[in-house]
């Protein structure tokens, strides 16, 4: 049968493809503690796509407004120090986007400790971020670079 070698190759490819996964799993949990904020995105294309520092500041103000009025998660921010939160978020986003900023806030685990955050909270916040990036006219490819940095923080932020 002509198809057999093709099938065999494809099946082998699947098996091989899944082999490093066990390894990847091990490194994930080991690195989790270090997920304070993540490393900056390489190059300056993404930073520029976010309209640089002014864009990041605008975006963050918009974002804080959204998350504190989103009925799904607004209650989580009751009593929060929004001035500090906005300040730290601007620094963190700017840092992650490889802007000229340092982030000196708490690591993500410490910052969200005891809040009992759930995946639904995290995802709601992620959707608000998507809207803020849309509002700032950040192109989709660049949005994905920041989302790829934020997504793994779920491991530190979500505790419930």
């Amino acid at each position, binding site marked *: 049968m002509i198809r057999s070698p093709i*099938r065999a190759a494809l099946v082998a490819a699947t098996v091989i493809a899944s082999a490093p*996964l066990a390894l*990847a799993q091990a490194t*994930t949990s080991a690195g989790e503690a270090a997920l304070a904020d993540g490393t900056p995105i390489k190059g300056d294309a993404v930073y520029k796509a976010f309209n640089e520092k002014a864009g990041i500041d605008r975006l963050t103000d918009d974002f804080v407004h959204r998350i504190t009025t989103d*009925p799904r998660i607004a209650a989580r921010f009751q009593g929060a120090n929004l001035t500090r939160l*906005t300040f730290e978020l601007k620094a963190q986003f700017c840092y992650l986007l490889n802007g000229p900023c340092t982030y000196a806030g708490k690591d993500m685990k410490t910052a969200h400790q005891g809040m009992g955050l759930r995946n639904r909270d995290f*995802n709601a916040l992620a*959707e608000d971020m998507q809207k803020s990036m849309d509002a700032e006219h950040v192109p*989709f490819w660049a949005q*994905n670079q920041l989302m790829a940095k934020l997504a793994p923080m779920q491991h530190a932020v979500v505790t419930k």
Partner: protein
Amino acid sequence: MRSAQFLACSAALAVGVLLCGGAYAADESAAPLSTADDSSQTGAAPSGGTAATPSPDAAASTSLSDFVDSGRLLLTQGVSNVEGASGGGLASWAVISGYETNDAVGGNAHFTYLNLPGYTVRDFGGSVGLFNRVELSYTRLQLDTGPTGGKLGIGDGYTFNEDIIGAKVRLFGDLVYDQNSLLPQVAVGVQYKHSENGALDEALGAKNPDGVDFYVSATKLFLNNALVVDTTLRLTKANQIGLLGFGGDLNDTYRPEFEGSVGYLITRRLVIGGEYRTMPSNLGFAKADNWFDVFAAYALNKDLSITLAYANLGSIATFKNQDGVYVSVQAGF
């Protein structure tokens, strides 16, 4: 009382309450909030809300939104495929049906139509996702032979009917969160399939009108590259995914088959891609070919998505080059 909760919601699905998930209040398509207002905060230090006490338990009172949250991101459940499982159009993926998070339930109903030169395929069913962990699905698949039935000697419009009941469990990995490693989302699944045309299947050489498929899927989202990739390994005896029964005169053992999909996210709502799926060829009278498709799936919102594809199923019951347009509509929460 989680079990009671998801029973309630499964029941809701059964009666077609698709908007069960009114819970995701912030509409994905909502117009951006006024940025002008917000930017006024930039210079002048806004007063941090300090008066109110933090209320982490604000959402503690039980309501529908506690277990129907539609809380996952758009398109992250894939679409209902031809066997009723979440995946692409032809392949099964490791994703779990519905937009529920690990604290909730979700589900879908779908209708799929595939127009081939010699046949018409219809497929309708539903699925529930429990805690983004377990997926249960049912679909009814019909292969309407139309005028081809006469040529095959089984009568014009003869229709092969198949029921597929599926269960899938996500083992580990998260499609979205695991962006800092190569870890994919991995799930195993089982599908019990029953062909209603046992006597004819047997006459065509099939050994059994019932069969069970087993599969393992690994799905990885590479957000950086806007790519989603799936590989699935399936053990099956199914002839044309079971429409023509299971096993045959040529082979009656389980064969490993491969399903592969690649999708590219153009926007958050739109993914295009292609799929390939190998098929066993157990029946002497008619060779079965591998399947492939190219697709575009569009999510209007979390309640409704549409998949359009060109699908090529190769030779079916001696009729070659069965390719055509695949349309699927899916509604859920």
